[in-house]
């Protein structure tokens, strides 16, 4: 069982967030950036026609 005492927290001024939550938010931002930037498989770009 994970207890509060075993949870790592990141402190930044008045901001305090658990490491797990910070990692999940970071992963979501990375996924969003990849979804915008990466081409979708089977997409017909101009050069491929």
């Amino acid at each position, binding site marked *: 069982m994970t207890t509060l005492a075993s949870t790592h927290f990141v402190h930044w001024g008045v901001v305090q967030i658990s490491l797990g939550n910070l990692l*999940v938010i970071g*992963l*979501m931002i990375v*996924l*969003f950036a*990849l*979804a*915008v930037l*990466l081409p*979708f498989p*089977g*997409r*017909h*770009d*101009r050069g491929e*026609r």
Partner: protein
Amino acid sequence: MTASSPSRNWTTALRERLSRTVPPGQALPDRQPAYVNSWIYVFGAATMAALVVVLISGGWLAIEGYTWWHTSSIGHFVNSLHLWSVEIFFATMVIHLWGKFFMASWRGKRGLTWVTGALAFFGSLGTAFTGYLSQTNFDSQWISTQAKDGLNAAGIGAYFSVTNTSQMLLWHVTLLPAIVGVIVVLHIVLVRRHGVVPPIDAEGMQLSSPDLEPTGAGRHELTTKDFARETASSPSGGEQP
């Protein structure tokens, strides 16, 4: 009433209302506009897929009961399945929200689609919160005693008690999923009615293309071929959005 006159009973009225809401062919389309060929359009469907796993694992937990999910190995597994499907549900829903926000997806009479999406988000927050309260462990006790102070300070603690486990469990498994379910269905119906929102720089192309195929309700959508032709003839150089 004769056999030749059209029937005007409530089933006919409902059928006609449904066909006006989502015209035939739009409810379950087998083709989408070319601009949907992007990963950012995947997250709405991913949210729905996660919701299905949430509902199945939650239903399984409800059937077996809390002693089962605390003591048996399969119970632990299904409990974790429920937690992680909720994590994926929220992560994909928020990425879906970011994508739709930055493409201003309330354009083209899609305001109600945006509003139902927001309501589904806030309804899901309440369902997740009562889920934390229904764990029946020290974590749920801690969260409930912390939350009651905030809710009492806001003046709504007189109407329900977050420390009442059975009340919160019933809200979690019946009331809130029913509300979220109705809102999600409305959201999907509205998406099918108005179509998937185009990227901001693709809107002008939709209006200018002379020979698009109608897809119902007087609406036109670009197919992959139309989109390629439009981008090739675009004076801006035809960059894909």
